[in-house]
């Protein structure tokens, strides 16, 4: 039983009913893994209902964690271990489990009525449907109840401790100490609910002891710490990192942050995070709807704050008219869209990348905005700062495209020092001798930021076309064309201040896999694996989507094939094809789920197994 197996990474998924505390269990184990120096990446998944009927497929909640001794960027394709607290959790997750993977399950929950509720026709533990896996049935419910018997909590509360029991089992399995978790429980819950904290610790210990005693498992797994760059780390979800990045942008600019938002999944947590920051002078407002939130952000930007609003797809649709106003009045507003499955209300808790074209074109008239998209949860911090750096420098609305997978997923984040952050102090225009609000900076083409309260520069702006220079209303034809041109050119010039597109892997070769947004990890590692197999495959990631880095066309031209995996039907692909007339190969998944590395690896095989060569026409136009 002291059989120690050294492995490089582990992918484990906790699954149970929405009420089973799965997200908390996952989080705690993740936290501990991070502290132990592993690289981590997580993916929670929960139903759109607050709490669907217990025991049904609709009510299953899950949390997947990949922790590793090397650098990772995805929560892993297939869990090697599945913890299933009831039959529904088993049924909803079994298809993702790696062949031969381990299932740790709560045997108490596999009663006939329960497996029927989950939609099984026969007892999955009795029929042979699970024969390809290693099964570890544990009477979790009854053991937990026994463990917490004397704490004086109610039976309902006692049952709720079963997640801690399984956490104890898992902790043992990966050869860890349970002490840090106990400390964590104490720190978080002792003060508020001491008897529950006590019960949780007892259940945890019981699970650990059980695994240690019962000889259920043939061995323990050991994973060494990952070699991450030196520094101080914390774990962040994408939404947390976004909130921190926006705060940081505000401090770097020396302008207050103003966040207006209307709650919507999966963006609400950004509102929750930022509303805790009153001591920074951060203003948050829960608006009556998304239109109002956009209007408020515009008003704040007009007054010299960093105007920020955040939402998800349907809310983005509502903001579109007002975003047009920000385009016309050239005010620096950042709009966060944490994308989810669409169209319409769609799949609120699932991830998708299908709002790119909405961000590009979802307004009347020629109405260009800048667009950025973070690649990983931790990258959200960086790209949030970038969004405001562009917005204030170019006096332009910037759309920041996150998604559900980034928003709720987490990874370790090395906290940067002040010297690592860009300098982006803003200055308002105060020169009374140049009182024209639409005279442009010759380099950036941005108009001056003149805020009310500045003496001598009183002026009027609005949504009607403006006269070049003066900003007065103008219906002049020629002027309209000029102004449309300026607004477009201003976006193009942003390319001057964003980093070029870089590739991982060979600088030229057979295949470039291009990505944007949350597909980063799967793409990068799939390409790496392909290279390890001797294939000539590079990967590159577009974090700036309007404009693209100046060298984008050139990079695309260096490879025989370009593959573009997207969680949509080919939105970026269409834009790149139109611009560069390059026959980019699409790879599209619209299932509310991220790509698996293996899916991309298979696609690489198909392409390099000898399909159509890249057809290139004019590379410029």
């Amino acid at each position: 039983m002291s059989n120690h197996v050294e492995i490089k990474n582990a992918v484990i998924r906790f699954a149970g009913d929405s009420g089973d505390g799965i997200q908390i269990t996952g989080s705690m184990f993740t936290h501990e893994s991070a502290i132990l120096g592993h690289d981590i990446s997580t993916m929670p998944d929960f139903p759109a209902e607050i709490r669907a009927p217990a025991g049904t497929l609709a009510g299953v909640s899950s949390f997947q964690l990949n922790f590793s001794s090397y650098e990772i960027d995805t929560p892993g394709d297939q869990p090697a271990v599945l913890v299933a607290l009831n039959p529904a959790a088993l049924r909803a997750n079994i298809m993702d489990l790696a062949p031969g993977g381990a299932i740790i399950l709560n045997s108490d929950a596999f009663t006939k009525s329960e497996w029927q509720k989950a939609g099984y026709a026969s007892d999955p533990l009795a029929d042979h449907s699970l024969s390809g896996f290693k099964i570890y049935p544990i009477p979790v419910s009854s053991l937990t109840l026994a463990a917490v018997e004397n704490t004086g909590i109610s039976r309902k509360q006692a049952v709720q401790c079963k997640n801690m029991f399984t956490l104890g089992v898992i902790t043992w399995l990966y050869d860890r100490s349970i002490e840090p978790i106990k400390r964590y429980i104490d720190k978080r819950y002792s003060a508020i609910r001491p008897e529950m904290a006590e019960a949780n610790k007892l259940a945890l210990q019981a699970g650990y002891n059980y695994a240690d005693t019962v000889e259920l498992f043939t061995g323990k797994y050991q994973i060494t710490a990952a070699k991450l760059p030196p520094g101080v780390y914390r774990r962040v979800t994408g939404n947390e990192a976004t909130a921190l990045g926006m705060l940081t942008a505000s401090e770097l600019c020396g302008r207050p942050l103003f966040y207006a938002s209307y709650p919507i999944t999966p963006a609400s947590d950004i509102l929750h995070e930022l509303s805790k920051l009153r001591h920074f002078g951060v203003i948050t407002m829960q608006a009556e709807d998304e239109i109002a939130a956009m209007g408020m952000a515009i008003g704040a930007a007009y007054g010299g704050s960093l105007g920020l609003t955040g939402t998800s797809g349907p809310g983005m649709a509502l903001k579109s008219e007002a975003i047009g106003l920000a385009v016309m009045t050239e005010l620096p507003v950042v709009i966060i869209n944490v994308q989810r499955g669409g169209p319409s209300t769609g799949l609120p808790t699932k991830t998708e990348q299908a709002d790119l074209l909405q961000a590009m074109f979802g307004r009347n008239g020629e109405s260009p905005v800048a667009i950025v998209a973070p690649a990983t949860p931790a990258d959200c911090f960086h790209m949030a700062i970038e969004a405001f750096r562009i917005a204030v420098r170019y006096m332009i609305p910037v759309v920041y495209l996150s998604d559900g997978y980034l928003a709720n997923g987490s990874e370790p984040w090395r906290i940067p020092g002040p010297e690592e952050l860009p300098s982006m102090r803003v200055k308002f225009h105060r020169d009374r001798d140049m009182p024209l609000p639409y005279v442009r900076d010759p380099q950036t083409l941005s108009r001056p930021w003149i805020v009310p309260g500045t003496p001598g520069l009183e002026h009027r702006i609005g949504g009607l076309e403006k006269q070049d220079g003066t900003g007065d209303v103008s219906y002049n034809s020629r002027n309209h064309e000029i102004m449309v041109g300026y607004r477009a050119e201003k976006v193009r010039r942003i390319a001057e201040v964003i980093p070029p597109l870089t590739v991982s892997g060979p600088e030229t070769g057979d295949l470039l896999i291009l990505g944007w947004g949350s597909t980063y990890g799967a793409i990068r590692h799939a390409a790496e694996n392909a290279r390890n197999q001797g294939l000539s495959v590079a990967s590159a990631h577009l974090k700036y989507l309007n404009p693209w880095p100046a060298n984008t066309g050139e990079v695309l031209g260096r490879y025989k094939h370009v593959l573009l995996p997207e969680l949509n039907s080919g939105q970026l692909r269409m834009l790149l094809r139109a611009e560069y007339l390059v026959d980019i190969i699409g790879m599209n998944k619209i299932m509310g789920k991220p790509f698996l590395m293996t899916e991309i690896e298979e696609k690489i095989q198909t392409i390099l197994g000898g399909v159509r060569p890249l057809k290139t026409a004019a590379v410029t136009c």
Partner: protein
Amino acid sequence: MLMNEQATRNEHVQQYTRKDFISPEAVRWCPGCGDYSILAQMQRVMPTVCAELNLPRENIVFISGIGCSSRFPYYMNTYGFHTIHGRAPTIATGLAVSRPDLQVWVITGDGDGLSIGANHLLHCLRRNIDIKIILFNNRIYGLTKGQYSPTSEKGKKTKSSPMGTMEAPVNPLYTAMVAEATFVARAIATDSDRLREILLRAARHRGAAFVEVLQNCNVFNDGAFDSFAEKAVMEERTLILKDGNPLIFGKNGDKVLKMRGGSHGLEFEVAPTAETPADKLVLHNEKSPRNYLARLLTTLDEATLPVPIGVFQAIDRPHYGAQLQDQIAMARKRNGPGKLFEHLHNADTWSVT
């Protein structure tokens, strides 16, 4: 920490005249439009506002939606923002809350403010945002050339209702009351002295002020208010509200408005003042926060009862911005002022060496 440098107001503000508030932009309303008078009174009252509140001109902002009325900001030589249809209150909210040093006015129309934009109006009033909202009510869509508006009388025939409208009109002031507006008033565009007085009172109010100005659109809805706003009948047909005074109107105050209770609920009626004992007179009270009478005064039937003009309600309630500043102060007291790098590290961290 990141407080606005504008947050401190000038010690002594220059003396302005009306001309200082006339912008160079040529006014583009139809000749005869009621909007002209509102503009003129605003420009005339502004020097007083600035002097009283020690407010420099550059700290004044006019924000509007879309409509004839919403062109207003172009003609005021202050900061101005002509936004999009119905959304001015939201933009004004963002500005006023983030810049407490500014005086923010919202100019809207009956269509802009009560059709597409009514929800924002409602929410910004209940938040008691420190802005002054002037709704130009001409009971018609002017800029789009004559469709009916939410305040058009039932049965009105317009381009979009050739057989007459079928909906009950919106009552702007009653709606504002329900939305918990802290300052509620009505003026008539042509009644210039009183209009100026009311604009001044709105300017003085801290919190959301809502003023309905009845404005004639002589092109698409001419004479909409003649039945009570014409010089000849005004004294008889309007009731000038005065705080602490009874609801007396008519020539020499010969009529009084009273309430009647009973088995059919409560109703208003007009009686001769002479026949009403002084102690039976209800007194107008602007300042009582739960003053049902003030609310009901916004609902009088225009055809049969006098039209009240003046300030219906003016109560003191902390405005949103002030409460927010309190929260900021309290948070700073509790946590100290935010320090970025401390905050970034304020989590379970670990070191990799």
